[in-house]
């Protein structure tokens, strides 16, 4: 049976983003109406029963996260929606906010009700200014229609949703760094514990949820947890958005169940439609730039949290970056380490200094000036970052080096031996074939 999109079914419609279309075509705000007739604890139980796992990167069960939010406290509580979407290769929240903003707004309101919050802040990256304008205009309409504000549906529940604009920082996507940034500071993470569920925004109990995660909540309210689990494999239920970029014919955001294999996503006619030109597939980064590479032999893996992990990588943010054989893996690692050394928040030493060292070593090897011992040094530095930092950024920064060394060590050795890149110059990734691309 063909999969019917539920998150993005209408995004191609001209009026998809409007409140009227949302109410008419997606039974908009019915989920919220239904939620407000139940107790907050019951909503959390429903979300737990659905098995919804966070779509921001870690795949942590959302219901549990909400359950951990401290209840017995006089302090206010907060929902922070993570709309920072800065993981290289990821662009799904972008589509949801731009084309289906009310689904997110409704999700924020239900999440607030479930944890006992009255305010949700949507932390959106500064570069998404055009998206923010749509979101703010639609939030205003939701207020006017009585779906936000005071005494929603006469239930006595008050809820405000505000958009908060970031200003250019990948690390602001880490949940405690996001909270710091929302408080008006540098986006540097906090030491955990305490976790945000106990002491988050303004030291109050807080849940940080990704955009796509919150967009699933109204669907669960309306259709029930059994419907949700049945959409995907065990423990990997619900709809999933995949962002496919790189050397494929039709890069874009595709919705599918987590039964779908990586091979189908790359080659399927309803998905990315295969490789861009005559050059064959070389490797894929399946979950945003921070996760290990997979090879052709791994492509029959279903693109679920658990299966991709079993195959040796992570589904992460579901950003699939597809690479053909023109890509030099030393160049790839260098490109990504340029990113990580720039985005490191600088709070802890292995990441701040180590990232810079990795970049310098990679540059030297890529330019053909590396020595044999540089390859071991590269491995040594990367291994001393992974697992030794304050936040998961450190592991993310070490990964491109460790995974390319593991799978393509011969390319590093060839650079050192030949004193140059051995991928034919006219193939080099920096000389792409845009011709077949539209």
């Amino acid at each position, binding site marked *: 049976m063909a999969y019917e999109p539920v998150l993005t079914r209408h995004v191609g419609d001209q009026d998809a983003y409007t409140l009227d279309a949302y109410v008419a075509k997606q039974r908009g705000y019915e989920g919220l109406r239904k939620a407000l007739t139940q107790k907050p604890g019951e909503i959390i139980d429903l979300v737990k029963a659905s098995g919804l796992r966070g779509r921001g990167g870690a795949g942590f069960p959302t219901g549990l996260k909400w359950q951990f939010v401290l209840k017995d406290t006089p302090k206010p509580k907060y929902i922070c929606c993570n709309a920072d979407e800065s993981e290289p290769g990821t662009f799904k929240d972008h589509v949801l906010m731009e084309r289906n903003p009310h689904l997110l707004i409704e999700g924020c309101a239900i999440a607030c009700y479930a944890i006992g919050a009255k305010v949700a802040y949507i932390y959106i990256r500064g*570069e998404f200014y055009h998206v923010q304008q749509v979101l703010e205009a639609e939030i205003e309409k939701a207020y006017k229609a009585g779906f936000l504000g005071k005494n929603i549906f006469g239930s006595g529940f008050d809820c405000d949703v505000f958009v908060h604009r970031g200003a250019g920082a990948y690390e602001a996507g880490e949940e405690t760094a996001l909270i710091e940034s929302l408080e008006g500071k540098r986006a540097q993470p906090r030491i955990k514990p305490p976790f945000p569920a106990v002491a988050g925004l303004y030291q109050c109990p807080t849940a940080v949820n990704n955009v796509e995660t919150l967009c699933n909540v109204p669907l669960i309210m309306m259709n029930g947890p059994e419907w949700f689990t049945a959409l995907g494999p065990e423990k990997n239920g619900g709809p999933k958005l995949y962002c496919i970029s790189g050397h494929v014919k039709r890069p874009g955001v595709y919705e599918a169940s987590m039964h779908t294999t990586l091979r189908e996503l790359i080659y399927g006619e309803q998905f990315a439609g295969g490789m861009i030109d005559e050059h064959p597939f070389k490797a894929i980064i399946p979950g945003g730039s921070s996760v290990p590479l997979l090879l052709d032999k791994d492509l029959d893996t279903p693109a679920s949290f658990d299966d991709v992990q079993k195959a040796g990588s992570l589904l992460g943010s579901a950003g699939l970056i597809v690479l053909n054989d023109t890509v030099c893996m030393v160049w790839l690692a260098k490109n990504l380490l340029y990113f990580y050394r720039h985005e490191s928040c600088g709070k802890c030493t292995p990441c701040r200094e180590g990232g810079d060292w990795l970049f310098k070593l990679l540059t030297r090897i890529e330019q053909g000036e590396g020595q044999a011992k540089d390859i071991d040094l590269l491995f040594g530095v990367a291994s001393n970052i992974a697992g030794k930092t304050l936040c998961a950024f450190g592991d993310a920064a070490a990964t491109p080096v460790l995974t390319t060394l593991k799978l393509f060590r011969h390319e590093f050795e060839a650079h050192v031996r030949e004193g140059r890149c051995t991928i034919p110059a006219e193939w080099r990734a920096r000389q792409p074939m845009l011709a077949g691309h539209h």
Partner: protein
Amino acid sequence: MEYAPAKFHKSARKLAPAGETFTYSPENQRRFDEIVTRYPPDQRKSAILYALYLAQNQNGGHLTAAAMDHVAEQIRCTSAEVEDVVSYYTMFFTKPVGKYVLNVCRTLSCALLGAERVTEELCAKLGIKPGETDASGTFTLLEVECLGACDRAPVVMVNDDWHERLSPEQAGKFIDDIRAGGAAAFTGCHLHKEKK
């Protein structure tokens, strides 16, 4: 390779020139006063990024020390705290920038489809290097990290606007088009555009 502390880092301290005296326009003051109510009364600092955007836009694209002092007064914090924030985030500038700030995405998905060459072409066309502003003060060229639109690679953000799928071959013409037609030269975000 000799050891030296990382020089590129965000925390590298650069003091901004004082600039002329600065206060918000009445309109910006009104907008700030409204935004600040979105946060608890004792958490004015949450509005600092917004306050800085207002100041930067009013000041023609960059922040002076006077502008940061004004933001400090508004937020009721020290100027040092404002500088602390400004120096961290990449979207604030403490030097004058051109009318159009070209932010070329250089991260993997865009690089796979030629972003490095887009930057090279733009450099050649404008006679500047990344990080510089051309002699006429019209264009500033920057390389930035993944903009969240990798399916439309290579992507360029121009001020708050977007241009998608800028091939290296079109880069020179892109500059001519902006010179001739301003913002009309941008494709905008495809999601945004299809809506109109």
